[in-house]
């Protein structure tokens, strides 16, 4: 039995929310982000702005250079979080199996809802309509038998995209796409592939998996599976997740350990915050590294006690990273941090001896969580890591 997975992705989310509230901006190049006078960065760009080559993560200064008439809007993160919650409410009408990836995108597994709501395409259309009519925003939706294909489909015809990949047309859909469309294949990956004569997904699919494995390691086999449109990962909401993780692929490979540690701290804060939001605690910490030669390693450590304290998770993750990189100078292309062995129902066993660090760090987390909830993720974070 095929699954039916939806990927819902809001178009230029922050910018669209601002334009919705200020109709005079409609049709203009709009950027949400820090001001160009400082060292601001583009958080989101409207589609008219994108036509000038402006994209998120670009410096505000560059954006102004590309388009002097651009309109800058200061971000209102807490407001976006509220809008995101409204979107979530729409999605929850169709299934409880909603896995949020960020404020502006989520996976839905609607397999069990098909009898109630009709086909996946039907549900996708309902969601698009509801988001437009009720929230005045535009969502791109991909409908496919798995997460990988659904995400690809939602992205392919943006903005206002709506692509349905039927189980029997997976290969027709995938084959003509460039390999860079596959998860984890960036510029560097694309170049390496091109050297092997692999440009499209079809090229990749025709290779033997052993060949890809010998060149790219375990990741090669994974790519081969993606090229065949295979992906078994379930859609999981945070409440039932067995693990929570975040990872990031760098645009340029990084080898400086203190920079990597800072990124790791950032990932850890995000993971820990999600953990606390769902009132869960973790017992294992996992570190994931992919090097420039595509070799991917994971290292994990079990904690003596389940915890949701950022400080404790960070200490362990940092220890794993330092242990792995202290003696080698390898360039890292992907860094990931995750927690596992989650306790479903943490109940408070009181302590005989109060642990000062724990009490204080826990209090710190509570406060920073409240600040982040109110003013947006990223408004408060830990200072740079101490050099070791």
């Amino acid at each position, binding site marked *: 039995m095929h699954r039916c997975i939806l990927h819902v992705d809001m178009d230029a989310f922050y910018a669209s929310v601002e334009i919705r509230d200020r109709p005079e901006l409609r049709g203009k190049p709009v950027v949400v982000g820090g001001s160009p006078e400082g060292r601001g960065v583009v958080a989101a760009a409207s589609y008219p702005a994108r036509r000038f080559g402006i994209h998120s993560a670009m410096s505000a200064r560059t954006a102004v250079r590309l388009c002097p008439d651009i309109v800058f809007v200061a971000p209102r993160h807490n407001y976006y979080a509220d809008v995101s919650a409204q979107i979530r409410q729409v999605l929850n009408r169709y299934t409880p199996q909603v896995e949020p990836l960020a404020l502006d995108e989520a996976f839905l597994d609607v397999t069990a809802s098909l009898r109630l709501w009709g086909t996946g395409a039907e549900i996708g259309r309902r969601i698009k309509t509801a988001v437009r009519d009720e929230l005045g925003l535009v969502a791109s939706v991909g409908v496919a038998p798995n997460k990988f294909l659904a995400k690809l489909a939602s992205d392919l015809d943006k903005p206002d995209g709506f692509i349905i990949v039927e189980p029997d047309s997976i290969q027709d859909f995938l084959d003509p796409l460039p390999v860079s469309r596959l998860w984890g294949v960036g510029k560097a990956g694309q170049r390496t592939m091109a050297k092997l004569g692999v440009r499209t997904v079809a090229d990749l699919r025709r290779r033997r998996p052993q060949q890809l494995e010998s060149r790219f390691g375990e990741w090669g086999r994974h790519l081969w599976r993606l090229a065949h449109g295979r992906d078994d990962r379930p859609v999981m909401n945070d409440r039932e997740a067995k693990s929570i993780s975040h990872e990031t692929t760098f645009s340029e490979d990084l080898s400086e350990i203190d920079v990597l540690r800072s990124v790791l701290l950032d990932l850890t804060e995000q993971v820990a915050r999600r953990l606390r939001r769902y009132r869960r605690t973790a017992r294992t910490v996992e570190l994931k590294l992919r090097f420039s030669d595509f070799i991917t390693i994971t290292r994990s450590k079990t904690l003596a006690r389940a915890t949701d304290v950022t400080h404790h998770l960070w200490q362990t993750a940092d220890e794993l990273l330092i242990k792995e990189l202290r003696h080698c100078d390898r360039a890292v292309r992907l860094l990931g941090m995750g927690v596992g062995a989650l306790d479903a129902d943490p109940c408070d066993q009181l302590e*005989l001896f109060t642990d000062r660090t724990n009490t204080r760090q826990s209090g710190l987390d509570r406060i920073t969580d409240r600040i982040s909830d109110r003013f947006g993720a990223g408004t408060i974070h830990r200072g740079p890591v101490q050099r070791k």
Partner: protein
Amino acid sequence: MKITIERDRILKPLGSVSSVVERRQTLPMLGNVYIRYEHSTVTLIGTDLETEVKTKVNDVEGEFGECTVGARKLHDICRALEENSNIEMQLRDERLMVNSGSSRFNLQTLPAMEFPRIETEDWDCELEVSQGELKKLIEKTAFSMAQQDVRYYLNGLLMEITGKILRVVATDGHRLAKSEITLDRSAGKTTRQAIIPRKAVNELGRYLEASDQLAKLCLSTNHLQVEVGLLVFTTKLIDGRFPDYEKVIPKDLAIHLQVHRNEMFDILARASILTNEKFRGIRLGVKSNKLSVMANNPEQEEAEDSMSIDYEGDEIEVGFNVNYLMEALRALEGETVDLGVQDPNSSCTIQQPNDNSTIYLVMPMRL
């Protein structure tokens, strides 16, 4: 080296020294037992570098020499041989030949010179206590030790000697067990503390027998040695500060209940079946003449049981890990226990009525 000995005389000493040897070692030598024959005496030693067990068998025929050989293999061989048989062990060209009746074993050895010993300092505190009493102290408390806690000083048993009092305390941070006995002679004016590692505590508990025979305890800054008969048990101590246990023992709890020990254990055992398997939480309710326990699990199944008690006063309900309560009740003796409770945020105490020598504390859970 040559030793001729009855199987039944060497089997138990060999078992004692083998049990401390880890099943999986980092160094091959740590899987071996040290054997030495000199002046009609066989000396056997086993070690894991943290704990060492040495024992002797006297009045044995043989020839001088020493070697080391796989502890578990030699023990298994001796155990498998027939009862009342004679065993002959002979070292020849760095191999140990073990012969008995029609059985022949040829074992590899490692040089005795390289066998690692624990080097102790001068003892600064010595005392004697009956084996049986020491064994009881361990049995009453050891189960409350922490296991692989980051607070490494909790992964062991605190031994405290103050004047004529020998006291042991174990805690995992959620519950605590304290038990003490009075010695015949004072072991010195100053208070002496030592934390014995968890594994050593469990090993020691097994060597001790419920007898009046005296055990001699010696302490130095970093080691504890216990001598019982021919067996010498030496262990490193955990270098750390044990938490101030006196401070957490509540002095005057609001409610003290006299409860039938076995009956309370039974109602807890029944209710525990439907607790959350991981957290083991139960609600303990006290109201007029009734002590009740309630449990439920993630599947929404529920259990409830109760017993009558002599109580008039306010109703109170406190959550606990049922295992902690049951283990304390099981470790106590006597028909009745004194259960002290206060409120859902304070620890409860379990002890024998009017007897402060052994006391258990359990911190509540918020359910």
